[in-house]
Protein backbone atom coordinates (compact mmCIF):
# COMPACT_ATOMS: atom_id res chain seq x y z
CA UNK A 1 0.00 0.00 0.00
CA UNK A 2 1.05 3.60 -0.59
CA UNK A 3 1.31 6.16 2.21
CA UNK A 4 -2.19 7.53 1.63
CA UNK A 5 -5.57 6.45 0.32
CA UNK A 6 -6.53 9.33 -1.95
CA UNK A 7 -8.57 7.48 -4.54
CA UNK A 8 -9.37 4.12 -6.07
CA UNK A 9 -7.20 5.15 -9.02
CA UNK A 10 -4.09 4.61 -6.83
CA UNK A 11 -4.97 1.03 -5.93
CA UNK A 12 -4.00 -2.10 -7.80
CA UNK A 13 -6.41 -4.99 -8.21
CA UNK A 14 -4.47 -7.00 -5.60
CA UNK A 15 -4.60 -4.14 -3.11
CA UNK A 16 -8.38 -3.87 -3.56
CA UNK A 17 -8.78 -7.59 -2.86
CA UNK A 18 -6.42 -7.32 0.14
CA UNK A 19 -8.61 -4.55 1.61
CA UNK A 20 -11.81 -6.57 1.02
CA UNK A 21 -10.33 -9.74 2.53
CA UNK A 22 -8.98 -7.84 5.54
CA UNK A 23 -12.43 -6.26 6.02
CA UNK A 24 -13.90 -9.75 6.04
CA UNK A 25 -11.69 -10.61 9.03
CA UNK A 26 -12.43 -7.28 10.75
CA UNK A 27 -16.17 -7.86 10.66
CA UNK A 28 -15.98 -10.51 13.37
CA UNK A 29 -14.61 -7.97 15.88
CA UNK A 30 -17.94 -6.10 15.74
CA UNK A 31 -19.77 -9.25 16.85
CA UNK A 32 -17.70 -9.82 20.01
CA UNK A 33 -18.81 -8.90 23.52
CA UNK A 34 -15.73 -6.63 23.72
CA UNK A 35 -15.66 -4.88 20.35
CA UNK A 36 -12.06 -3.74 20.49
CA UNK A 37 -8.58 -4.94 19.55
CA UNK A 38 -5.33 -3.25 20.66
CA UNK A 39 -3.85 -2.90 17.17
CA UNK A 40 -3.64 0.91 16.83
CA UNK A 41 -2.98 1.59 20.51
CA UNK A 42 -1.09 4.86 20.88
CA UNK A 43 -1.86 6.04 17.34
CA UNK A 44 -3.67 9.35 16.88
CA UNK A 45 -6.27 9.78 14.15
CA UNK A 46 -7.70 13.20 13.30
CA UNK A 47 -11.05 13.32 11.52
CA UNK A 48 -11.07 16.64 9.70
CA UNK A 49 -14.50 17.28 8.20
CA UNK A 50 -15.13 20.38 6.12
CA UNK A 51 -18.53 19.15 4.95
CA UNK A 52 -21.49 17.79 6.88
CA UNK A 53 -21.43 14.03 7.30
CA UNK A 54 -23.22 11.60 9.58
CA UNK A 55 -22.53 8.16 8.17
CA UNK A 56 -18.94 8.54 7.04
CA UNK A 57 -17.70 10.37 10.12
CA UNK A 58 -19.46 8.05 12.56
CA UNK A 59 -18.25 5.03 10.62
CA UNK A 60 -14.61 6.18 10.64
CA UNK A 61 -14.82 7.03 14.33
CA UNK A 62 -16.24 3.63 15.27
CA UNK A 63 -13.61 1.91 13.12
CA UNK A 64 -10.82 3.91 14.79
CA UNK A 65 -12.13 3.17 18.27
CA UNK A 66 -12.49 -0.56 17.58
CA UNK A 67 -8.80 -0.59 16.68
CA UNK A 68 -7.93 1.35 19.91
CA UNK A 69 -6.68 4.49 18.17
CA UNK A 70 -7.04 7.86 19.90
CA UNK A 71 -9.43 9.86 17.77
CA UNK A 72 -10.37 13.46 17.63
CA UNK A 73 -12.94 15.14 15.47
CA UNK A 74 -12.59 18.59 14.02
CA UNK A 75 -15.87 19.90 12.75
CA UNK A 76 -15.15 23.00 10.76
CA UNK A 77 -18.23 24.83 12.02
CA UNK A 78 -16.50 25.12 15.41
CA UNK A 79 -12.93 25.71 14.26
CA UNK A 80 -10.63 28.54 13.26
CA UNK A 81 -11.47 27.97 9.58
CA UNK A 82 -14.29 30.38 10.27
CA UNK A 83 -11.64 32.92 11.26
CA UNK A 84 -10.12 32.70 7.78
CA UNK A 85 -7.46 30.00 8.08
CA UNK A 86 -6.60 28.15 4.85
CA UNK A 87 -6.70 24.36 4.51
CA UNK A 88 -2.90 24.25 4.18
CA UNK A 89 -2.39 26.27 7.37
CA UNK A 90 -4.92 24.19 9.31
CA UNK A 91 -3.21 21.04 8.07
CA UNK A 92 0.28 22.20 9.03
CA UNK A 93 -0.94 23.17 12.49
CA UNK A 94 -2.53 19.77 13.00
CA UNK A 95 0.59 18.15 11.58
CA UNK A 96 2.69 20.00 14.17
CA UNK A 97 0.89 17.98 16.85
CA UNK A 98 2.06 14.77 15.13
CA UNK A 99 -1.04 12.72 14.40
CA UNK A 100 -0.52 9.42 12.58
CA UNK A 101 -3.52 9.56 10.28
CA UNK A 102 -5.70 12.40 8.99
CA UNK A 103 -9.13 11.55 7.57
CA UNK A 104 -10.27 14.44 5.37
CA UNK A 105 -13.66 15.35 3.94
CA UNK A 106 -13.61 18.54 1.86
CA UNK A 107 -15.85 20.28 -0.66
CA UNK A 108 -12.98 20.87 -3.13
CA UNK A 109 -11.78 18.13 -5.46
CA UNK A 110 -8.09 17.47 -4.86
CA UNK A 111 -8.03 18.77 -1.26
CA UNK A 112 -6.66 15.41 -0.09
CA UNK A 113 -3.84 15.52 -2.63
CA UNK A 114 -2.83 18.93 -1.30
CA UNK A 115 -2.86 17.58 2.24
CA UNK A 116 -0.90 14.50 1.19
CA UNK A 117 1.87 16.69 -0.26
CA UNK A 118 2.30 18.84 2.84
CA UNK A 119 1.74 16.23 5.58
CA UNK A 120 3.87 13.38 6.80
CA UNK A 121 0.81 11.80 8.40
CA UNK A 122 -1.13 9.25 6.38
CA UNK A 123 -4.10 10.85 4.62
CA UNK A 124 -7.39 9.05 3.97
CA UNK A 125 -9.86 10.65 1.57
CA UNK A 126 -13.33 10.62 3.08
CA UNK A 127 -14.77 12.43 0.06
CA UNK A 128 -13.25 15.37 -1.83
CA UNK A 129 -15.67 17.52 -3.83
CA UNK A 130 -16.76 15.83 -7.03
CA UNK A 131 -13.62 13.72 -7.29
CA UNK A 132 -13.49 10.51 -5.22
CA UNK A 133 -14.85 8.78 -2.12
CA UNK A 134 -12.72 5.62 -2.08
CA UNK A 135 -13.91 4.00 1.16
CA UNK A 136 -17.52 4.22 -0.08
CA UNK A 137 -16.63 2.34 -3.27
CA UNK A 138 -14.73 -0.26 -1.25
CA UNK A 139 -17.66 -0.89 1.08
CA UNK A 140 -19.99 -1.08 -1.93
CA UNK A 141 -17.72 -3.69 -3.53
CA UNK A 142 -17.58 -5.58 -0.21
CA UNK A 143 -21.39 -5.61 -0.05
CA UNK A 144 -21.74 -6.71 -3.69
CA UNK A 145 -19.19 -9.50 -3.24
CA UNK A 146 -20.97 -10.72 -0.12
CA UNK A 147 -24.26 -11.10 -2.02
CA UNK A 148 -23.02 -12.19 -5.44
CA UNK A 149 -19.79 -14.01 -4.41
CA UNK A 150 -17.98 -12.21 -7.24
CA UNK A 151 -17.72 -8.86 -9.00
CA UNK A 152 -16.22 -10.01 -12.29
CA UNK A 153 -18.88 -10.21 -15.02
CA UNK A 154 -21.74 -8.64 -13.03
CA UNK A 155 -24.10 -6.11 -14.64
CA UNK A 156 -24.04 -3.01 -12.44
CA UNK A 157 -26.34 -0.08 -13.26
CA UNK A 158 -25.70 3.26 -11.57
CA UNK A 159 -28.57 5.76 -11.78
CA UNK A 160 -28.80 9.38 -10.67
CA UNK A 161 -26.80 12.58 -10.47
CA UNK A 162 -23.66 11.39 -12.24
CA UNK A 163 -22.15 14.83 -12.65
CA UNK A 164 -21.71 15.80 -9.01
CA UNK A 165 -21.02 12.35 -7.61
CA UNK A 166 -17.65 11.36 -6.16
CA UNK A 167 -19.24 8.03 -5.24
CA UNK A 168 -19.84 7.41 -8.97
CA UNK A 169 -16.22 8.05 -9.93
CA UNK A 170 -14.78 5.83 -7.23
CA UNK A 171 -17.27 3.07 -7.97
CA UNK A 172 -16.70 3.15 -11.73
CA UNK A 173 -12.92 2.97 -11.27
CA UNK A 174 -13.22 0.09 -8.81
CA UNK A 175 -15.92 -1.96 -10.55
CA UNK A 176 -14.36 -1.71 -14.01
CA UNK A 177 -10.96 -2.66 -12.59
CA UNK A 178 -12.51 -5.80 -11.07
CA UNK A 179 -14.22 -6.71 -14.35
CA UNK A 180 -17.86 -5.68 -13.82
CA UNK A 181 -19.98 -4.48 -16.73
CA UNK A 182 -21.03 -0.98 -15.66
CA UNK A 183 -23.87 1.09 -17.14
CA UNK A 184 -24.44 4.65 -15.91
CA UNK A 185 -27.76 6.39 -16.38
CA UNK A 186 -29.07 9.91 -15.73
CA UNK A 187 -30.49 12.96 -17.47
CA UNK A 188 -28.12 14.19 -20.19
CA UNK A 189 -27.58 17.43 -18.25
CA UNK A 190 -26.10 15.36 -15.40
CA UNK A 191 -23.81 13.10 -17.44
CA UNK A 192 -20.17 14.22 -17.14
CA UNK A 193 -18.45 14.76 -20.49
CA UNK A 194 -16.11 11.90 -21.38
CA UNK A 195 -17.45 9.46 -18.76
CA UNK A 196 -17.52 6.67 -21.39
CA UNK A 197 -13.73 6.85 -21.51
CA UNK A 198 -13.72 5.18 -18.08
CA UNK A 199 -15.08 2.06 -19.77
CA UNK A 200 -18.80 2.35 -18.97
CA UNK A 201 -21.95 2.34 -21.07
CA UNK A 202 -24.00 5.53 -20.89
CA UNK A 203 -27.78 5.57 -21.07
CA UNK A 204 -30.40 8.24 -20.55
CA UNK A 205 -33.29 5.74 -20.41
CA UNK A 206 -33.58 4.10 -17.05
CA UNK A 207 -35.98 1.32 -18.17
CA UNK A 208 -33.38 0.18 -20.64
CA UNK A 209 -30.42 0.68 -18.28
CA UNK A 210 -31.78 -1.56 -15.49
CA UNK A 211 -32.58 -4.51 -17.78
CA UNK A 212 -30.84 -7.68 -16.52
CA UNK A 213 -28.97 -5.75 -13.82
CA UNK A 214 -27.44 -7.78 -10.96
CA UNK A 215 -26.89 -4.59 -8.97
CA UNK A 216 -28.68 -1.23 -9.10
CA UNK A 217 -26.86 1.57 -7.38
CA UNK A 218 -28.77 4.81 -6.82
CA UNK A 219 -27.05 8.18 -6.48
CA UNK A 220 -28.42 11.13 -4.58
CA UNK A 221 -29.59 14.25 -6.39
CA UNK A 222 -27.12 16.73 -4.92
CA UNK A 223 -29.16 19.89 -4.92
CA UNK A 224 -26.59 21.66 -2.74
CA UNK A 225 -24.03 21.38 -5.57
CA UNK A 226 -26.44 22.39 -8.35
CA UNK A 227 -26.13 25.95 -9.51
CA UNK A 228 -28.53 26.01 -12.42
CA UNK A 229 -31.49 24.10 -13.78
CA UNK A 230 -30.48 20.52 -14.59
CA UNK A 231 -34.04 19.18 -14.79
CA UNK A 232 -37.46 20.85 -14.77
CA UNK A 233 -38.70 19.65 -11.39
CA UNK A 234 -38.05 17.09 -8.70
CA UNK A 235 -41.38 15.50 -9.53
CA UNK A 236 -40.47 15.12 -13.18
CA UNK A 237 -37.10 13.68 -12.20
CA UNK A 238 -38.78 11.04 -10.09
CA UNK A 239 -41.16 10.12 -12.91
CA UNK A 240 -38.33 9.79 -15.43
CA UNK A 241 -35.46 8.37 -13.34
CA UNK A 242 -36.81 7.48 -9.88
CA UNK A 243 -36.39 3.84 -8.85
CA UNK A 244 -39.82 2.26 -8.48
CA UNK A 245 -40.88 -1.38 -7.98
CA UNK A 246 -41.95 -1.50 -11.67
CA UNK A 247 -38.44 -0.54 -12.77
CA UNK A 248 -36.76 -2.92 -10.34
CA UNK A 249 -38.89 -5.71 -11.85
CA UNK A 250 -37.01 -5.28 -15.14
CA UNK A 251 -33.72 -6.24 -13.52
CA UNK A 252 -32.68 -9.81 -12.58
CA UNK A 253 -34.93 -11.48 -9.98
CA UNK A 254 -32.09 -11.52 -7.42
CA UNK A 255 -31.08 -7.88 -7.99
CA UNK A 256 -29.79 -5.87 -5.04
CA UNK A 257 -30.51 -2.14 -4.61
CA UNK A 258 -27.82 0.07 -3.15
CA UNK A 259 -27.64 3.72 -2.11
CA UNK A 260 -24.67 5.50 -0.50
CA UNK A 261 -26.99 7.74 1.53
CA UNK A 262 -28.36 10.12 2.50
CA UNK A 263 -31.47 9.13 0.54
CA UNK A 264 -33.97 11.54 -0.93
CA UNK A 265 -37.11 9.42 -0.74
CA UNK A 266 -39.51 10.32 -3.51
CA UNK A 267 -36.79 11.98 -5.62
CA UNK A 268 -34.34 9.29 -6.74
CA UNK A 269 -35.87 6.31 -4.96
CA UNK A 270 -39.36 5.36 -3.82
CA UNK A 271 -39.88 4.20 -0.25
CA UNK A 272 -41.15 0.80 -1.45
CA UNK A 273 -37.77 0.19 -3.08
CA UNK A 274 -35.66 1.70 -0.31
CA UNK A 275 -37.33 -0.52 2.29
CA UNK A 276 -37.93 -3.49 -0.03
CA UNK A 277 -36.53 -6.99 0.36
CA UNK A 278 -33.84 -6.43 -2.30
CA UNK A 279 -32.52 -3.30 -0.56
CA UNK A 280 -29.06 -3.71 1.04
CA UNK A 281 -28.74 -0.04 2.00
CA UNK A 282 -28.35 -0.65 5.74
CA UNK A 283 -25.92 -3.52 5.15
CA UNK A 284 -23.75 -1.04 3.26
CA UNK A 285 -23.64 1.13 6.38
CA UNK A 286 -22.75 -1.85 8.60
CA UNK A 287 -20.01 -2.99 6.20
CA UNK A 288 -18.55 0.52 6.14
CA UNK A 289 -17.08 0.03 9.62
CA UNK A 290 -15.27 -3.22 8.68
CA UNK A 291 -13.89 -1.75 5.45
CA UNK A 292 -12.62 1.39 7.21
CA UNK A 293 -10.98 -0.74 9.92
CA UNK A 294 -9.20 -2.64 7.14
CA UNK A 295 -7.98 0.56 5.47
CA UNK A 296 -6.76 2.04 8.78
CA UNK A 297 -4.93 -1.17 9.67
CA UNK A 298 -3.27 -1.56 6.28
CA UNK A 299 -2.20 2.10 6.08
CA UNK A 300 -0.89 2.36 9.62
CA UNK A 301 1.85 -0.17 8.90
CA UNK A 302 5.19 0.41 7.25
CA UNK A 303 5.52 2.01 3.84
CA UNK A 304 8.13 1.26 1.21
CA UNK A 305 10.78 3.94 1.16
CA UNK A 306 9.93 5.26 4.62
Amino acid at each position, binding site marked *: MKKDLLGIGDLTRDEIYLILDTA*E*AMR*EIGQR*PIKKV*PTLRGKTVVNLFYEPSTRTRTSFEIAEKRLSADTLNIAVAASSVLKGETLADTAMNIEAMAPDVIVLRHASSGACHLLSRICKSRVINAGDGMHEHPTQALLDAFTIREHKKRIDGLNVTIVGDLLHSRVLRSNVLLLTQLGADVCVCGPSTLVPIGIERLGVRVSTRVDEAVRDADVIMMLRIQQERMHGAFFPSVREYFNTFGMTPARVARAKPDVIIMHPGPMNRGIEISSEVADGPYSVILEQVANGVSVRMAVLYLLA*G*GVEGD
Partner: protein
Amino acid sequence: MPVVLDAVRIGRTLTRIAHEILERHVTPGGPGDIVRLAFVGIRTRGVPIARRLASAIHEINGQEIPTGALDITLYRDDLMRHAVGPQPVIRRTEIPFSIDDKRILLVDDVLYTGRTIRAALDALIDFGRPKAIQLIVLVDRGHRELPIKADYVGKNLPTSLSQSVQVHLTEIDGRDDVEIQDA
Protein backbone atom coordinates in the same frame (compact mmCIF):
# COMPACT_ATOMS: atom_id res chain seq x y z
CA MET B 1 16.30 -31.34 5.42
CA PRO B 2 16.13 -33.83 8.29
CA VAL B 3 12.62 -34.96 9.11
CA VAL B 4 12.20 -35.19 12.88
CA LEU B 5 8.57 -36.35 12.89
CA ASP B 6 6.95 -38.23 10.00
CA ALA B 7 3.24 -38.73 9.30
CA VAL B 8 2.98 -41.91 11.40
CA ARG B 9 4.69 -40.30 14.39
CA ILE B 10 2.51 -37.17 14.13
CA GLY B 11 -0.60 -39.40 14.11
CA ARG B 12 0.56 -41.35 17.18
CA THR B 13 1.58 -38.19 19.00
CA LEU B 14 -1.85 -36.60 18.54
CA THR B 15 -3.61 -39.81 19.63
CA ARG B 16 -1.43 -39.84 22.75
CA ILE B 17 -2.27 -36.20 23.53
CA ALA B 18 -6.00 -36.96 23.05
CA HIS B 19 -5.69 -39.75 25.65
CA GLU B 20 -3.81 -37.42 28.00
CA ILE B 21 -6.59 -34.82 27.71
CA LEU B 22 -9.19 -37.46 28.62
CA GLU B 23 -7.05 -38.76 31.47
CA ARG B 24 -6.82 -35.31 33.02
CA HIS B 25 -10.41 -34.20 32.46
CA VAL B 26 -12.61 -37.28 32.85
CA THR B 27 -13.38 -38.51 36.35
CA PRO B 28 -14.09 -42.25 36.78
CA GLY B 29 -17.83 -42.97 36.64
CA GLY B 30 -18.71 -39.48 35.38
CA PRO B 31 -18.00 -37.03 32.60
CA GLY B 32 -15.89 -34.68 34.79
CA ASP B 33 -14.73 -31.52 33.04
CA ILE B 34 -14.93 -32.83 29.52
CA VAL B 35 -18.38 -31.29 28.98
CA ARG B 36 -16.84 -27.88 29.47
CA LEU B 37 -13.77 -28.34 27.26
CA ALA B 38 -13.28 -26.43 24.02
CA PHE B 39 -10.40 -26.35 21.52
CA VAL B 40 -9.13 -23.07 20.07
CA GLY B 41 -6.54 -23.47 17.32
CA ILE B 42 -4.16 -20.62 16.51
CA ARG B 43 -4.06 -19.82 12.79
CA THR B 44 -2.66 -21.20 10.64
CA ARG B 45 -1.45 -24.66 11.65
CA GLY B 46 -2.93 -24.79 15.15
CA VAL B 47 -6.39 -25.06 13.57
CA PRO B 48 -6.04 -28.44 11.78
CA ILE B 49 -4.22 -29.85 14.82
CA ALA B 50 -7.12 -28.77 17.05
CA ARG B 51 -9.62 -30.38 14.63
CA ARG B 52 -7.64 -33.64 14.59
CA LEU B 53 -7.51 -33.74 18.40
CA ALA B 54 -11.27 -33.14 18.56
CA SER B 55 -11.94 -36.00 16.13
CA ALA B 56 -9.46 -38.28 17.99
CA ILE B 57 -11.41 -37.69 21.21
CA HIS B 58 -14.67 -38.29 19.36
CA GLU B 59 -13.33 -41.66 18.17
CA ILE B 60 -12.24 -42.65 21.67
CA ASN B 61 -15.38 -41.82 23.64
CA GLY B 62 -17.96 -40.32 21.24
CA GLN B 63 -17.82 -36.85 22.78
CA GLU B 64 -18.03 -33.74 20.54
CA ILE B 65 -15.74 -30.96 21.72
CA PRO B 66 -16.41 -27.53 20.16
CA THR B 67 -13.49 -26.18 18.13
CA GLY B 68 -12.68 -22.60 17.14
CA ALA B 69 -10.00 -20.76 15.17
CA LEU B 70 -8.10 -17.72 16.42
CA ASP B 71 -6.07 -15.24 14.37
CA ILE B 72 -3.70 -13.36 16.68
CA THR B 73 -2.28 -10.85 14.16
CA LEU B 74 -4.09 -7.83 15.60
CA TYR B 75 -2.63 -8.61 19.04
CA ARG B 76 1.02 -9.03 17.98
CA ASP B 77 3.54 -6.97 19.95
CA ASP B 78 5.71 -6.32 16.88
CA LEU B 79 2.89 -5.12 14.62
CA MET B 80 3.58 -1.39 14.36
CA ARG B 81 7.34 -1.60 14.88
CA HIS B 82 8.45 -2.22 11.30
CA ALA B 83 9.12 0.96 9.36
CA VAL B 84 9.16 -0.86 6.03
CA GLY B 85 6.96 -3.44 4.38
CA PRO B 86 3.32 -4.34 4.21
CA GLN B 87 1.16 -5.26 7.19
CA PRO B 88 0.69 -8.98 7.87
CA VAL B 89 -2.46 -10.45 6.35
CA ILE B 90 -5.34 -10.91 8.81
CA ARG B 91 -7.49 -14.00 8.62
CA ARG B 92 -10.81 -14.67 10.23
CA THR B 93 -11.28 -15.56 13.88
CA GLU B 94 -14.13 -18.04 14.30
CA ILE B 95 -15.10 -18.99 17.83
CA PRO B 96 -18.76 -20.00 17.39
CA PHE B 97 -19.40 -20.66 21.10
CA SER B 98 -19.17 -18.75 24.38
CA ILE B 99 -15.84 -19.31 26.15
CA ASP B 100 -17.24 -18.17 29.53
CA ASP B 101 -16.52 -20.78 32.22
CA LYS B 102 -15.08 -23.19 29.64
CA ARG B 103 -11.75 -24.95 29.97
CA ILE B 104 -10.00 -23.77 26.82
CA LEU B 105 -7.37 -25.96 25.20
CA LEU B 106 -5.27 -23.58 23.13
CA VAL B 107 -3.49 -25.35 20.26
CA ASP B 108 -0.45 -24.30 18.20
CA ASP B 109 2.10 -26.14 16.08
CA VAL B 110 5.42 -24.81 17.43
CA LEU B 111 6.18 -23.19 20.79
CA TYR B 112 9.24 -20.93 20.49
CA THR B 113 9.56 -17.44 22.05
CA GLY B 114 6.09 -17.58 23.60
CA ARG B 115 5.05 -14.26 22.05
CA THR B 116 2.32 -15.82 19.90
CA ILE B 117 0.83 -17.44 23.00
CA ARG B 118 0.98 -14.14 24.89
CA ALA B 119 -1.00 -12.53 22.05
CA ALA B 120 -3.46 -15.45 21.98
CA LEU B 121 -4.11 -15.13 25.73
CA ASP B 122 -4.89 -11.43 25.31
CA ALA B 123 -7.18 -12.20 22.38
CA LEU B 124 -9.04 -14.96 24.26
CA ILE B 125 -9.69 -12.72 27.26
CA ASP B 126 -11.53 -10.33 24.88
CA PHE B 127 -14.01 -13.12 24.15
CA GLY B 128 -15.00 -13.78 27.75
CA ARG B 129 -13.74 -15.28 30.99
CA PRO B 130 -12.75 -18.92 30.62
CA LYS B 131 -12.45 -21.12 33.70
CA ALA B 132 -8.94 -22.11 32.64
CA ILE B 133 -6.68 -22.04 29.59
CA GLN B 134 -4.24 -24.87 28.85
CA LEU B 135 -1.67 -24.99 26.06
CA ILE B 136 -1.11 -27.84 23.61
CA VAL B 137 1.79 -27.75 21.12
CA LEU B 138 3.01 -30.30 18.63
CA VAL B 139 6.66 -29.22 19.00
CA ASP B 140 8.42 -27.29 21.78
CA ARG B 141 11.71 -25.98 20.39
CA GLY B 142 12.79 -23.95 23.45
CA HIS B 143 14.27 -20.40 23.54
CA ARG B 144 11.41 -18.82 25.48
CA GLU B 145 11.37 -15.02 25.85
CA LEU B 146 8.32 -14.96 28.12
CA PRO B 147 7.30 -17.04 31.16
CA ILE B 148 5.10 -19.47 29.22
CA LYS B 149 5.00 -23.27 29.41
CA ALA B 150 2.95 -25.85 27.52
CA ASP B 151 0.63 -28.30 29.35
CA TYR B 152 0.74 -30.92 26.60
CA VAL B 153 3.79 -31.32 24.34
CA GLY B 154 3.98 -33.58 21.28
CA LYS B 155 7.76 -33.53 21.10
CA ASN B 156 10.50 -31.58 22.84
CA LEU B 157 12.97 -30.60 20.16
CA PRO B 158 16.27 -29.02 21.26
CA THR B 159 17.26 -26.48 18.57
CA SER B 160 19.75 -23.69 18.09
CA LEU B 161 18.57 -20.15 17.36
CA SER B 162 19.87 -20.34 13.81
CA GLN B 163 17.71 -23.34 12.94
CA SER B 164 14.11 -23.18 11.83
CA VAL B 165 11.38 -25.73 12.47
CA GLN B 166 8.79 -26.33 9.72
CA VAL B 167 5.56 -28.16 10.46
CA HIS B 168 3.66 -29.44 7.41
CA LEU B 169 0.08 -30.67 7.67
CA THR B 170 -1.97 -32.39 4.98
CA GLU B 171 -4.87 -29.91 5.28
CA ILE B 172 -2.57 -26.99 4.37
CA ASP B 173 0.64 -28.36 2.85
CA GLY B 174 -0.49 -31.64 1.33
CA ARG B 175 1.74 -33.76 3.58
CA ASP B 176 2.38 -34.48 7.27
CA ASP B 177 5.87 -34.00 8.69
CA VAL B 178 8.09 -31.82 10.87
CA GLU B 179 11.42 -30.71 9.45
CA ILE B 180 14.35 -28.95 11.03
CA GLN B 181 16.37 -26.67 8.82
CA ASP B 182 19.85 -25.18 9.32
CA ALA B 183 20.24 -21.60 8.24
